[in-house]
């Protein structure tokens, strides 16, 4: 890769970073409660409390969540060498949905129980998928994907059974809203643990960025380059799963960012390196921040955030594709 391209990519990342900061700032300023800068700086207690326990956590969750989903999407697409790979390929979203539905039906109705159960469900589904694939001879990508599809189907079946058993007026509505994804119920008390897990796992992903790229080449080649393919792939997938599960267990399923952000990043950078990973995250962050601002202000009530991630993201992706200089460069 020539130097000018690298410089260009750094500039791209910086621009995306600034865009994300601007979106975060806007997110801090928009909301139903009339916060005023003067009152906040003047130390009005009520205003400060709303800002610190509601507005700020929501912005942090949108920024971190979007970044995490974008980066994790990049990891899944790269490792599986599949432009359509998404976190749900190995069952994390459907597992988390089934976990949340289980909690809504059977556990005491607290936010913590739903979040915890969703997190457990997501990890459990991926654990089963990876465990099953390990039983298959060879341990190739294909067997992980197949095991993932099987677990995904099983989790969907469990979810359907839970929905069927749900009381249509209370529980079914809660399950549906959870699956649609929203940041309206984010409060300070809810997020520290999941944010910490997410950040740690993200750091792991970034430290392993070279190995992730190597996993995307032919297995034999990767082995020759000194990568313990099987174990490395397992580690990377577990980290990416933790990243995704920690976000969606708090927000509910947020669709499309994991698929969209890496493609946008790749079409912009035209390579498959650290800059693409970073840009995937930043684009994801921008997408989710803007989508959440719209979700809370487009109508008088809160709307599911996924509507807007797709609504903003899809046209942008189409524009990049139609501009014509993006190639099918997902495989390094």
């Amino acid at each position, binding site marked *: 890769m020539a130097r000018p391209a690298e410089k260009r990519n750094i500039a791209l990342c910086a621009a995306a970073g600034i865009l994300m900061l601007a979106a975060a700032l806007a997110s801090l300023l928009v*909301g*139903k*409660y*009339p916060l005023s800068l003067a009152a906040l700086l003047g130390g009005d207690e*009520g205003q400060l*409390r*709303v800002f610190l*326990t*509601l*507005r700020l956590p*929501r912005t942090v969750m949108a920024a971190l969540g979007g970044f995490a989903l974008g980066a994790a999407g990049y990891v899944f697409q790269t490792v599986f060498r599949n432009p359509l790979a998404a976190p749900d390929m190995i069952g994390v979203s459907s597992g988390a949905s089934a976990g949340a539905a289980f909690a809504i039906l059977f556990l005491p*109705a*607290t936010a913590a129980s739903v979040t915890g159960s969703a997190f457990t469900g997501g990890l459990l589904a991926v654990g089963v998928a990876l465990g099953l694939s390990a039983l298959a001879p060879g341990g190739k990508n294909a067997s992980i994907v197949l095991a993932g599809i099987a677990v995904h189907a099983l989790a969907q079946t469990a979810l359907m059974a839970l929905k*069927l058993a749900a009381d*249509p*007026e*209370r*529980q*079914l*509505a*809660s399950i549906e*809203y959870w699956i649609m994804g*929203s940041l*309206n*119920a984010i*409060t300070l*008390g809810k997020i520290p643990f999941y944010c910490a897990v997410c950040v740690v796992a993200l750091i792991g992903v970034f430290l392993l960025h070279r190995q992730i790229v190597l996993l995307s080449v032919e297995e034999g080649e990767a082995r020759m380059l000194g990568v313990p393919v099987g174990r490395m792939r397992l580690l990377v997938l577990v980290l990416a799963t933790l990243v995704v599960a920690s976000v969606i267990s708090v927000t509910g399923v947020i669709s499309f960012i994991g698929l969209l952000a890496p493609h946008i990043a790749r079409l912009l950078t035209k390579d498959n390196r650290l800059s693409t990973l970073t840009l995937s995250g930043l684009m994801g962050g921008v997408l989710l921040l803007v989508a959440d601002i719209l979700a*809370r202000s487009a*109508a*008088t*009530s*809160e*709307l599911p955030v996924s509507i807007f991630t797709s609504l903003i993201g899809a046209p942008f992706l189409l524009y990049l594709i139609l501009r014509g200089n993006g190639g099918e460069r997902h495989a390094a």
Partner: protein
Amino acid sequence: MKKLTALLLALALTLSLTACGAPAAQSTQTPAPTPASDPTAAPTPEPTKAPEPDPDVITYPVTVTDQLGRDVVIEAQPERLVSGYYISTSLLIALGLEDKLVGVEAKAASRNIYQLSAPEIIDLPSVGTAKEFDLEGCAALEPDLVILPAKLKDVIPSLEELGIAAIAVNPEDEALLEEAVAILGEATNTVAQAQALLAFHNEQLSALTKDLAGLEAPTVYLASNSALLSCAGPEMYQNDLIEQAGGANAAADITDDYWADVSYEQILAWDPDYIILAADAEYTVESVLEDENLQDCAAVKNGSVFQFPNDVEAWDSPVPSAILGSMWLASILHPEYGASNWQDAVTEYYQTFYGFDAVVGAAAGAEG
């Protein structure tokens, strides 16, 4: 949209009823039936001895227009009834038809009102839920008439093919509820009882309106069964309920026509005087009072968080006894209105229409 549909349905009903010479349906707008033929005076009309047609007696076959706008011909007085919806089941009990029921909706055992008024209903075969209707099971009961919620409209063509008369009811607001009462009264030849039910409702409502006249309306946030951060907007039945009880819906500027999701910020910005939880909510008054995100909200600061009582029925939904919900809420929002009005009405209502003594807490859900 909902209101328009309601209006059209009401119009269609009125037209069809006048056309076939039956008593005019309860108008959706006028508050009380004409006092000239006081329905409470003759609760059990004798069809045989009337030389000229008694407006309270239905001559079959009769055509009724249901709440999907369908004309349904009922050939003879139905003797075997199936109800696939708890509101219509409760209504049929109030009309004194519990002995004619041969099948009811699923989970009947969870309804207090059945336990108290007609426990035999609980053991009747279930015809399914609003999600999954058991068509074969229903047909096996050989009903003369099936009453379904409008939600189950997909089932109706199949029932028609089987030659079973089906009426869809859609009691989503007060006018529609009144209309549903009138439709069922006509379809089952219980017009007088249906009018008595409506008369009770209208009398209590006008008394309530009079008692609350001139009182200041506190703002009320009505949280749904599913979550605190989900509330009733102005298009919902629950909005009428709040207004009848002399309150103002805090969420009046919401445009959703169903339970709407909101954020804590939104609640704090509205700063309602009262937070009222739906009767079947699984979260508690205590959890709301202790919610650290709401400590600056007036309702929480003043301990003005209550849950609709659910001793007999969920009075926050458009059940036939819905007026009792408005009266309960009035007693909470306006202490000077007094809980005794509400309790007396509860006693009278359930004795008259269901034949049992209702026992309700003085102010269920009240915070100490």
